[in-house]
Structure formats: C-alpha cells, structure tokens
C-alpha cells in the first residue's frame, strides 16, 4: 500500500519535472561551446574591456557575440604556441570559418531588450545581469540570473523605471 503511494508519488513528481523541463525552455540549457573561452585571460590578464569584443553593448540592442572578425584582431597569428586553445581559435581564423558559439542568454522574440538602453543610458554594470565574468576561466554553463520577467520587474521597480508592459513587449 505504502509502496503504491510512493510509486504514484514518484510518478507524479516525474510528471511535474518532465512537464516543467520540457515546457520551460528559457534559460538553464546546458551546452558546450566549441572553444573553451576564458573570460579571465582576456579581461584580467590582457585588460580587454567588455565592449571591445561585445561591440554592440553600448551602441546597439544586442551586445553581440564576437566572431572571427573580432578574434582575428589579435589571433591572426599564433601568439603563444604552447597554448592548445589558441591553436583552435587560430584554425577558425585561418579557415575563415564562423565559430559556432552557443548563445546562453536568449531573450524571447516578444521582448524588447536593448543593451544600449541599459548599459549606456541606464548605467548598469555588465555584472549586474551577467555576473562577474572576469573570473570565469571557461564558458559558463548556466545563466547567472534566470531571465524571467520577474527579474526585470524587480529591478525596474526598485529603480523606479516604468513597468508598463507595452514598453518591453511587442
């Protein structure tokens, strides 16, 4: 009897988990990038600013994920021949191939979100939403923040920014 209850409980939990997992696709999707990119090396060691690679962050809606046109600025030749990683990036640059980065932060198409507005005009730090990337030595596997509307909402409310639905949804 008790086991039956237990089994049905498991069944129910399984259903809930499955439903949630398949229904809820925004965020928390594990994936692997083709290159084990280290933010730490770039930002801390080489003192490169975020907007150098994420070029649209202050001028555009999208910050943009850099591709070989950006990478080749430094990696047009092998800088450190001992690094295996560098060979990988160089091979992409050499073959003029697009690096198949995986976008971790995806915003649904019905949301209007502009980096320029938040970074340039709203004077937010990158780390406010993305966490401190300068310490990351490998690509992130999880969103720093769950990009749910509540997250936007809390911030907007605490800063007294408009929370009118039509300002962000289209």
């Amino acid at each position, binding site marked *: 009897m008790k086991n039956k209850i237990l089994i049905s409980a498991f069944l129910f939990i399984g259903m809930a988990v499955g439903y949630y997992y398949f229904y809820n696709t925004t965020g928390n999707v594990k994936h692997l990038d083709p290159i084990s990119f280290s933010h730490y090396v770039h930002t801390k060691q080489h003192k490169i600013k975020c907007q150098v690679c994420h070029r649209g962050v202050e001028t555009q809606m999208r910050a943009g994920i850099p591709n070989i046109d950006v990478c080749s600025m430094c990696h047009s030749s092998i800088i450190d021949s001992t690094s295996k990683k560098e060979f990988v990036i160089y091979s992409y640059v050499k073959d003029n191939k697009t690096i198949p980065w995986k976008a971790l932060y995806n915003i*649904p*198409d*019905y*949301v*209007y979100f*502009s980096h*320029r*507005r938040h970074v*340039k*005009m709203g004077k937010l730090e990158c780390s406010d939403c993305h966490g401190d990337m300068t310490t990351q030595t490998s690509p992130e596997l999880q969103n720093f923040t769950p990009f749910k509307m509540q997250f936007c909402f809390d911030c907007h409310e605490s800063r007294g920014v408009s929370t*009118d*639905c*039509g*300002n*962000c*949804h*289209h």
Partner: protein
Amino acid sequence: MPRYGMVIDLNKCNQCGACVTACKLENNVQIVSKENADMGRAMYWMKMLDINYEGSYPEIRPTNIPMLCQQCDEPSCTKVCPVRATYKRDDGIVAQIYPQCIGCRYCMANCPYTAKVFNWLKDEQPVENEKCYNTDVSVRPKGIVEKCTFCIHRLQKAKENAKSEHRKLEEDDYIPACAEVCPSNAIYFGDLDDPKSQVAKLVHDYRKFTLQEELGTKPKVYYLSAKSE
C-alpha cells in the same frame, strides 16, 4: 504624456492598399492559407473595409475606409480581458501583450469594430516571407489574439534613440508603418494633446468623424470624410 492618435483623410485616400501591405509586413502578420481565408480567418490589422457605393451608375463613387484598431480612449476590449493582456497605456495606445494572452477571445467578442484577429492555426508562412520578418516584432504563436498597436515597437526604439541623443521625442521620430508609406499622405499620425501637431489641428476639421461615435468608445482614429464641399 502624449496621447497618440491618427487622422485619415478619405479625400486623399485612393484605396491603393499600401497601408495594408505595409502593416502586414511590418508586423509579421500571418498569411493564411486559402482554406482559412475562405473561412474568414484572414488576418489584417489594417484592412480596407468593404466598398460601399454612393450614387447610381454611371454617377457612382466608391467609399471605403482603411480600418484599423481604433485605439479607443474608452476601449471596450480592455475591460473584459481577464488577464490584462490588453490594456490602455498612459500614452493612449491600446497595447496587446502577447505572452500574457490566454486566448479566450472575449476582447474580440466585445470589440465593436471587429478590429482584433486571432491566430487560429500555427503559422505556416511561405519561405520568402519568413525571411523578411521584421525582427522588431515577435511572431505570434497560435492561440492568441493580436491587433494593431500603432506599431508600438517603433515607439520603443524611437524613445531609446531620442534618449540616446539627449532630446525629447519629436513628432517625426515615431510614426506607424501605414502612415509612413501612404503614397498620398492621407494618414496623419501624432500627439493629439500637442496643439502644434498636425493631427491636433485636423481633429477640429469640420469633416471629421469617428466610427460608431454613439457607443462612446471615443476612438483616437479620426476620419475626414470625403466630401470636399
């Protein structure tokens, strides 16, 4: 706070239909198949309302009206929405929040202008149109209600651009697609509360009328009748 409104001069409109096309393309409005169109599910946020004829042959002239969401000041659709998927913004635009909508179609039933459309089926767009989707506007999934929003995505962008240039939003910054493309400049758009704007002047024109005035919905889309005398 502005109060956006539109004036359509029927004396200038020659029914070319550019506004209809522009609206469909700007807002990624679905193109439906023949079966659905025949059932009355063709989706138009802006449509040329059926032609009426005045007079008798050969002294006969068509009258028709480019019809869009009337953006009422007293909208009847927002009252009945159970989840606040449609509501009136402070600037007068009756917005439709797609991820909120549960698809009960109560607002459609209560719109005296039949201006709302519903996504009956999942969209199967022709490839050529899919590639030309406007990235500023979401593609609505099946099962939700949509309607003209005065191209609210253009307002979102215009506001940001104005702010980045440290100036106020000017009249030319924000204009819906239909008004932009109209070849005969029959569609005026602007702030009704700004006495300097053209729409504010035109709504006092003696030819002005609104649709279904008696219902008290106070549309913000005004028409200037075709009588020129």
